[in-house]
């Protein structure tokens, strides 16, 4: 509680709201990010529940076994998970004050996220070309809406990473602001972890069941 004259006391641009001593000793914005992550868990929980409920409601359209290209998605999943490593290294770099390294890893993380996103756009395009669209069946709707919202979360994370990179290039991200990087990192790791659950629910479980039933 007596740490109010640590990093937060200097009037650095963008940190106006983290200057106060806090009752818990945890920065306000970090606490808010954890709260947001708690809320997001229920958001994705509701989307995943809908998907699991509708995975068998394929109507006249394709089934999961017909449509998914598991090797392709596994590769893009691997890239997304590796981006979490990049995020960790970027945070370690800024904490150590190695700004060049920080910028390199931030950009690399954003690039890996973009690769995943490009893979998702490609996948969506192929599906639509094969006649598997948003309106095909409750299964297709819940698939597109679930993965689409995850994609939006990745895109938002990429935007934040690029903003960090630009701010650092402009000299507006001093080392004291490593807590901001940490907060972006918390969000980024959350989005990755959610993808592990989504990937398991969408691609792995139906694949396992189709092996046993067909």
């Amino acid at each position, binding site marked *: 509680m007596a740490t109010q004259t640590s990093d937060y006391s200097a009037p650095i641009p963008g940190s106006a709201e983290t200057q106060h001593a*806090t009752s818990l000793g945890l920065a306000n914005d970090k606490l808010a990010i954890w709260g947001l992550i708690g809320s997001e868990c229920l958001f994705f929980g509701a989307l995943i529940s809908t998907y699991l409920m509708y995975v068998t409601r394929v109507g006249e359209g394709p089934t999961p076994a017909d449509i998914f290209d598991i090797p392709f998605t596994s590769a893009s999943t691997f890239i997304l998970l590796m981006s979490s490593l990049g995020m960790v290294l970027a945070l370690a770099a800024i904490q150590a004050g190695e700004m060049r390294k920080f910028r390199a890893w931030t950009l690399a993380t954003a690039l890996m996220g973009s690769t995943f996103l490009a893979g998702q756009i490609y996948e969506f395009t192929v599906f639509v070309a094969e006649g598997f669209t948003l309106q095909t069946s409750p299964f297709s709707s819940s698939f597109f809406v679930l993965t689409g919202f995850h994609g939006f979360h990745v895109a938002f994370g990429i935007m934040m990473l690029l903003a960090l990179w630009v701010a650092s290039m402009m000299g507006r991200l001093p080392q004291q602001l490593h807590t901001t990087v940490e907060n972006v990192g918390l969000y980024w790791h959350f989005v990755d972890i959610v993808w592990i659950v989504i990937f398991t629910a969408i691609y792995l479980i139906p694949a396992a069941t189709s092996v046993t039933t067909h």
Partner: protein
Amino acid sequence: MSVAAEHRTATSTRRNMFRRPTSETGFWSWFTTVDHKKIGIMYFVTAFFFFLVGGVEAILIRIQLAQPEMTFLTADQYNQIFTMHGLTMIFFAVMPLGAAFFNYLLPLQLGARDVAFPRLNALSYWVFLAAGIYIYSGVLLGGLPDGGWFNYAPLSLIGPNPTDILEAGTATSQHVSRMVLYSVGLQIAGIASLASSLNFIVTILNMRAPGMTLMRMPIFTWMIFITSFLILFAMPIIGVALWQLMFDVRYGTSFFNPAGGGDPILWQHMFWLFGHPEVYILILPAFGIVSEILPVFSRKPLFGYTAMVFSAIAIGILGWGVWAHHMFAAGLGPIANSAFGLSTMFIAVPTGVKIFNWLGTMWGGQIRLKTPMLFAAGLVGMFTIGGLSGVSHAIVPHNYQQTDTYYVVAHFHYVLFGGAIFGLFGGTYFWFPKVTGRLLHDGLGKLHFLLMFVGFNMTFGPMHILGLWGMPRRIYTYADGMGWNFWNLFETVGAFVIAAGVLVFMVNMVRSVKGGEIAGPDPWDARTVEWMTPSPPPHYNFAEIPVITARDEFWHRKYVGEGEKPPVRVPAGASSDHDPAVAATPDQSLPAHGPGHEGHADIHMPSPSYYPLVAAIGLPIMGWGILMPGAWQIGLLAVGGLILLAGLFGWVLEPSAEETH
């Protein structure tokens, strides 16, 4: 200001699109303010306006139902009005009125200078206002939502003309726009609630005055804390359901459309998984207000503070396990129905604990029957009636009889009007002197309470009878000869009595803002620290942050008591309960006020900002985009999205508050 800091400010200002606004007074300062007190007032005024709109809608409903076979409203108009009455009262009146109290009082009760994220707080307000404007823009855009606030699928897919049913895979009828307004409008309102709940949670956890442990917090602050967690976890669920609804009605998916293979029951589950916690989101703030008022006007500490806190936590947790009691008639089967019936009865236990604690607070106290006390006692009585009819819903066979009848309407008006609205009015009378420095007129206040109390019971009491006699809810008219005529007319008269009460309240407000009796900092001999500052409080709230040594800190500073003898009032600051030596125990080692805060002019407050308003403007523009066809849709989505992004980027890059006054 140091040279280095000056240099930094100069640099960052130059790099910004426009300078940070500085004015603290005047008309435009309301648009850029980040002061929680101003935002609280704006919330109150806006929400009260929506309360009046919802009230007019209620009057229209009652006129239409005053006699059988009335043609005052058409079926289509009636559907729009009863839907908007529910939406307005829940999302645009009661919730934001709660938010008004949260905003104004939370930092004052915590002994803080502002909330944790002042700009986010401003964003919440503007987004809430944007949502209200967006959803009411339906008046100009082909009609307001008309599927009921619950908006069950596939009801949401049926147009104003019952033959106009939305086919799976199409999305072209006029009806589409109405339900898009519902789905996107509530989505936007949800963003506002979510942002403020995060803000309040962080504020409560992190910005308490030195010495204020969680169990020393004022009980109202505890209720804000629990309500904020409910909002934080309930909003994303309705958010998903609303997105799915939007895709159904606008982009032709079949999440809830049985014609395309979807499941209408899924909407009910998601809606009520949000909707039941929402009930507690609406009522817990009123519980908190009443728990502040009763001790002050009974001149006793709150009976069973700890039990009050834990019963509210229990309500907050159990509230997640009762949602299917709204769906007993949907055919979930006897096991689900029994389980949810039982859990619903369980939730009556912590609620009962609260009611008995309020009675225990009043029991043997020196009760002063001022207007806030009347409303608080009114809540205890009326909420108990509503709670008991609620327990009767938990009995499944009984529920089959009541479901979709006016008995249910009576129940939820007893808890939301007799509960939430009474509590909020009581809180208004209680804290009005803190906000304006002047008291509301007590005589007019008592007249307001009397009209409200009588009118309320006239309007909603007979609905129990009508419901048990089988009058269904949500119908726009009824046949003669059903035996419902007398009570319906009686209820309509009651509604006008309520309206008269609200009118008296408005007269009182207008009269008292400028001409009311001067209140002074502590007109009620109150117990919590917000009464230690002048009324109205200065923009920095406390010249010196108080050091908290007890629950009911302010009372302990005013009174000292020994053993069985009644407490004695002491000169300011001299109470032995507030010994400075006690205040300096190791766990309260923070200084009573931060460095540089000795002179009030030096107190460092966040500067106003344009960006919350800018970001909020983007959202309804995107929402209107979703209504439009083709290129208009993409165009408006892009414009709205760019405004939103510009607001967010400006926000992040904005220089920090560096105006030293």
